[in-house]
């Protein structure tokens, strides 16, 4: 089955090509069928691959040489490891449901087929990114993901905010991409190869795995520092410095893509896109790519404790920062967006403290419940046609299914047992605690409290109380309710895939040695997590259960509320320290270009033109005048010639 792995990304690509050619002529139902069936088939194949990997272990990469540069060969190919087998399943599952959901959400849009076309390309890019065996190929898909997010966030480009958000998303992630690119080149200079396996394990890609059982991932460290695979390090770097530097550069790329501090500003703005796009970006494709990158390069980070610490600290800081901002936002999608930033911070934190399995596990559970939250939000927005929390309310009775689905997602996000988020978040917190990072543990705990508070704030404002609008909200069609149901089920039960008693995912991922998983049950920490989540919910109920109480709380907290409401002024800060100086420089350069360089050119051309226009009037058309001038010219020449000849 792994031989067919290439089909997984190719099927959505085929759907994209098909829609590109015939999308305009097809009915909406046909368009949906093509895209959904393609991705669903990818899901089935992925599932089969994962089962095979679970039974027989990872398969060797299939590569073919693509670019031969002198002695170096850059090969393209795909491979199936336990990590990407799991990612394939998750991405294709969530994507298929989102694609199905879009049928109802985008009904009647003038560019319906175009939308599905972009979505298919997006899914293709993400699946390709996951399955690739080569850093360069990875980077290509990585950029393709960025382009697709640009296209989709700006899908309603006629809205100025959407166009600006699309540009912001693209440019901010590009900043991170530069770091990744430099890191990639450094790795190539160090190892003379782009293949993940050769870089990490010093092993030819084409040979079958010999490291499958019990080979420590830390091998990379020894390999990088002393091993035969490493070549002369560029710029005379010491091995340790080289590893740290490349790891940090790679992490910069992940920071951009996964919206970590300080490049987190694009993700909430990306809410201007259609809601299914938000679901896809937040759950399965775009932001997951950053976490996946760190996970894929995990041996590199393991080899550098300093880089790992940076990852953990950035992750923890992002988690608390985004959670604090999420407390006060008015836009339902923005709250969920900040929760995504926060949860991604958790994943980075996990990877940073070495809890590889927990990070991946949280990525998976998060994909389920975050897709669920976005799709329910989409369902709500579809029904009430506003995104302002304070114009909703009372939807519990009007939309019972959506209510139940959102509640499942919110409980999972808050980390209430037995929902999915509890298990994964608790594992991360436990890992932070047991690795001795007590500060990070505390930060994570506070962020968890805030998370529970803000998501239930959304819940009470949206579904509790009485409906404040003048429309008649109702459930969407089957295309909307089926994905909601499926995701709600997953958000509820996905946590049991990796409990301390039955660590299936941990076992599954351990084909290359026990990577960062401590299966010990820590009852104390579990109880603390659950209590903190419940406390957040309780506070939210206290604040929003009765009218007016929340305002009083906001007034009491004073400037803290303003700070949070204005997102800690990051956009303004970036505007001051980055955008405006650069714009000023650009304008100065533009002035130089327009008036000095262009001015010189225009001066020359204007001089020539004026001279020509003036000399034109010397052209009288009187042939005898010409002849007279010629005569004098000949006379002068004769005088000169005679003078030179010595006659005169």
């Amino acid at each position, binding site marked *: 089955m792994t031989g067919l792995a290439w089909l997984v990304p190719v099927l959505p690509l085929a759907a994209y090509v098909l829609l590109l050619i015939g999308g305009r002529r097809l009915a909406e139902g046909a368009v949906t069928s093509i895209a959904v069936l393609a991705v669903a088939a990818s899901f089935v194949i992925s599932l089969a691959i994962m089962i095979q990997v679970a039974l027989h272990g990872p398969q060797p990469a299939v590569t073919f040489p693509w670019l031969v540069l002198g002695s170096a060969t850059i090969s393209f190919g795909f491979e199936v490891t336990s990590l990407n087998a799991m990612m394939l399943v998750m991405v294709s599952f969530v994507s298929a449901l989102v694609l199905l959901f879009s049928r109802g959400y985008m009904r009647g849009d003038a560019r319906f087929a175009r939308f599905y076309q972009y979505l298919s390309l997006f899914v293709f890019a993400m699946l390709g990114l996951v399955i690739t065996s080569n850093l360069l190929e990875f980077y290509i898909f990585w950029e393709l993901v960025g382009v697709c997010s640009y296209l989709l966030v700006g899908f309603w480009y006629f809205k100025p905010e959407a166009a600006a958000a699309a540009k912001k998303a693209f440019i901010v992630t590009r900043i991170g991409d530069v770091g990744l690119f430099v890191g990639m080149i450094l790795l190539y200079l160090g190892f003379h190869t782009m293949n993940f396996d050769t870089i990490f394990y010093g092993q030819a890609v084409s040979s079958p795995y010999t490291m499958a059982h019990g080979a420590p991932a830390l091998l990379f460290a020894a390999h990088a520092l002393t091993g035969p695979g490493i070549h002369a390090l560029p710029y005379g770097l010491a091995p340790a410095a080289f590893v740290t530097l490349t790891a940090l550069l790679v992490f910069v790329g992940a920071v951009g893509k996964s919206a970590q501090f300080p490049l987190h500003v694009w993700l909430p703005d990306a809410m201007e896109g259609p809601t299914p796009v938000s679901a896809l970006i937040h759950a399965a494709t775009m932001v997951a790519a950053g976490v996946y990158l760190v996970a894929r390069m995990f041996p590199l980070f393991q080899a550098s404790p300093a880089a790992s610490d940076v990852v953990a600290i950035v992750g923890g800081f992002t988690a608390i920062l985004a959670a604090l901002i999420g407390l006060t936002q008015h836009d339902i999608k923005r709250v969920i967006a900040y929760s995504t930033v926060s949860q991604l911070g958790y994943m980075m934190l996990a990877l940073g403290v070495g809890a590889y399995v927990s990070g991946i596990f949280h990525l998976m559970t998060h994909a389920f419940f975050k897709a669920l939250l976005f799709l329910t939000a989409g369902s709500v927005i579809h029904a009430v046609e506003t995104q302002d929390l304070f114009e909703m309310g009372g939807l519990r009775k009007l939309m019972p299914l959506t209510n139940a689905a959102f509640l499942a997602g919110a409980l999972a996000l808050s980390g209430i047992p037995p929902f999915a988020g509890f298990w994964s978040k608790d594992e991360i917190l436990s890992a932070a605690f047991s690795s001795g990072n007590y500060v990070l543990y505390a930060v994570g705990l506070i962020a968890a409290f805030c998370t529970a508070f803000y998501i239930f704030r959304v819940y009470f404002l949206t579904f509790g109380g009485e409906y404040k609008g003048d429309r008649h909200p109702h459930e969407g069609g089957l295309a909307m309710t089926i994905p909601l149901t499926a995701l709600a089920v997953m958000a509820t039960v996905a946590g049991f895939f990796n409990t301390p008693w039955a660590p299936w995912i941990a076992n599954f991922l351990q084909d290359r040695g026990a990577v960062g998983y401590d299966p010990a049950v820590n009852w104390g920490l579990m109880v603390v997590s659950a209590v903190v989540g419940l406390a957040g919910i309780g506070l939210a109920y206290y604040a929003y259960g009765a009218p007016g109480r929340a305002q009083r709380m906001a007034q009491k907290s004073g400037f803290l509320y303003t700070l949070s409401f204005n997102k800690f002024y990051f956009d303004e800060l970036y505007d001051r320290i980055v955008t405006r100086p650069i714009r000023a420089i650009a304008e100065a350069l533009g002035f130089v270009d327009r008036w000095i360089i262009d001015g010189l050119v225009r001066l020359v051309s204007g001089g020539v033109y004026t001279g020509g226009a003036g000399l034109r009037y010397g052209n009288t058309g*009187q042939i*005898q005048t010409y002849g007279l001038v010629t005569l004098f010219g000949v006379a002068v020449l004769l005088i000169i010639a005679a003078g030179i000849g010595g006659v005169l």
Partner: protein
Amino acid sequence: MALQPFLALGAILFAIGAYGALTKRNLIIVLISLEMMLNAANINLVAFSHFGKTPHVAGQVFALFIIALGAAEVAVGLGILLAFFRMRNSADVKDASAMKW
């Protein structure tokens, strides 16, 4: 006899012709002046043919060629002049200034 008197005569005749070509306003007189300049050149050719270091008849042949060419030139020139006169009802050089600017 020597070469220089003939060359001097040619130069003077050429100068008279040039003066006429540049000052006269009647197109026919201009044409006549041009013919005089051609004749001055012919005098030089024939003089060199006679007094050259190795006298040769080629100079005379060239003079004949120039005479023939001069005849052709007069034919075409007078044709243009007649057409111009018919169009503008004038034979003035100053009126033939359409190709300015």
